[in-house]
């Protein structure tokens, strides 16, 4: 695998895992996360 391949793989994974973690943490932190209002 070329350096470019590693960069694309790493950047894509970081971006997606970062977005997913942010969304999940925000969702779980919201007060009404247990039940819909």
């Amino acid at each position, binding site marked *: 695998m070329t350096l470019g391949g590693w960069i694309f*793989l790493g950047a894509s994974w970081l971006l997606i895992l970062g*977005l997913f973690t942010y969304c999940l943490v925000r969702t779980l932190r919201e007060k009404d996360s247990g039940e819909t209002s």
Partner: protein
Amino acid sequence: MARERWGSKLGVIMAVAGSAIGLGNFLRFPGQAAQNGGGAFLIPYFVALLLLGLPLMWIEWTIGRFGGGFGHSTAPGMFHTLWNKNRFIKYFGVIGIFGPVVIYIYYVYIESWLLGYSWFALTGAYDGCQDKASMAAFLKGYQGIVKNEYFSGLAPAYLFFLITFAANTLIVYLGVQRGIEAVCKYGLPILFVLGVVLMVRVFAIGTPDAAQPDWNIVNGLGFLWNPDWSALGSAKVWLAAAGQIFFTLSVGIGVILTYASYLTPKDDVALSGLTAAATNEVAEVILGGSIVIPAAFAFFGPAGTAEFAKGGTFDLGFVTMPLVIQQFPYGNLFGFAWFILLFIAGVTSSISLAQPAIAFLEDEFGLSKKEATLIFAVNSFVLCHAAILFIGNGVLGELDFWGGTFCLVLFATVETILFGWVFGMEKAWTELHVGSDITIPKIYRWIIKYVTPLVLLTILGWWLWQEGIPTAMMENVAPENARYVLGARIMLLSLLAELVCLVWIVWRRRRAPEVPA
């Protein structure tokens, strides 16, 4: 009759993500990336996610929750509430029921193959197939296209279809909370665990053949991820990326509208839509990009993998992967894990396809869940036989063309224009942020109003020119299949006409102006 509701916020997110995560995440995405520039494909892919995928997610979640406030779970009623001065828009909304039903007709059958192959993996039924030709013959025998040493008829496939169909019917009968939400809440974590297990196993392959030191897992990842910069100059690559984002997120079908209609008017849609999209991307880019192509490369090298990637979704799933997994120690167990993973992905998608039609009968005709489910089950069961019996005659491709491609792009284009231009961006933006847990960047006002419709119109026009018109004119249909394809079209037209009539009957009965429920 009290309106059904989701049990939890996480439940609705899982249900929407489950609807989006399907066979395409694990089979279509890696094939598309490998053929369209490798790592460089991810540039147009993420651009399309930002300009097309996320706006459509937010549009559908918002329209769905808004329409649910008026007691509507499906597009005809929702479109009517958005543009109540127009007498015809509700008839256009029929596509939001028609499309899911058409996809359901063939999707449930394909899903049943996955259950069948899970069983075959455990029992070692395809262990004797050691090359591509024999594994492809096994699949054709199972589908009933040919009689061979593996299968003498359609009976095994039909048995697994009956089990799969019954399971889907039971889940939707149990309702939004006890059926759909419960299945997705347990199914999705299992799917992710299986995906990670398979990914780790693939990464551990190393160099399986010492005589071919270049055929290893790192170069397999390189086959998918090494960027080919020249691909960025090709319009085809950009449109392929936009198409992949479009199909992977389950937008343009009508199912997100229905799922979002079970939210309360103050529930968040902005963060929930984003979370569902992010969950789908984890399954697609991280898991989907790390299993099939790298594994195929390690065992079959660059030429073999390129051939597999061009072979399409079915070849990758039912021919390549069983061949690859057979090479692993405990191959039967890993084969089972692979097909059960795809089966779970299939079930969480197919139940979402069934829900709009059932919800339409419940909401607009006041039928009970039992009555609505029974009517849907009987009708879809009969229609499924078109896909089962005439799969070798081009019927499956025809259903996929109208239900899974044409209706999606058309529906998404119209709902985007309806949302940003007819309902109005001011009202739309306010509605999107009611109860919102995040603030969407203001640039999305401009993107939703101008960029997303423009991108969709471009895709629609290009696709009609390249594929739509030739397919509609039956240019690529073999002469011996023409009558089957025509028969499928008559069936689809009859279904569409029936749904239009039902909408006409509903609105004829209802004369009073609508107020929020």
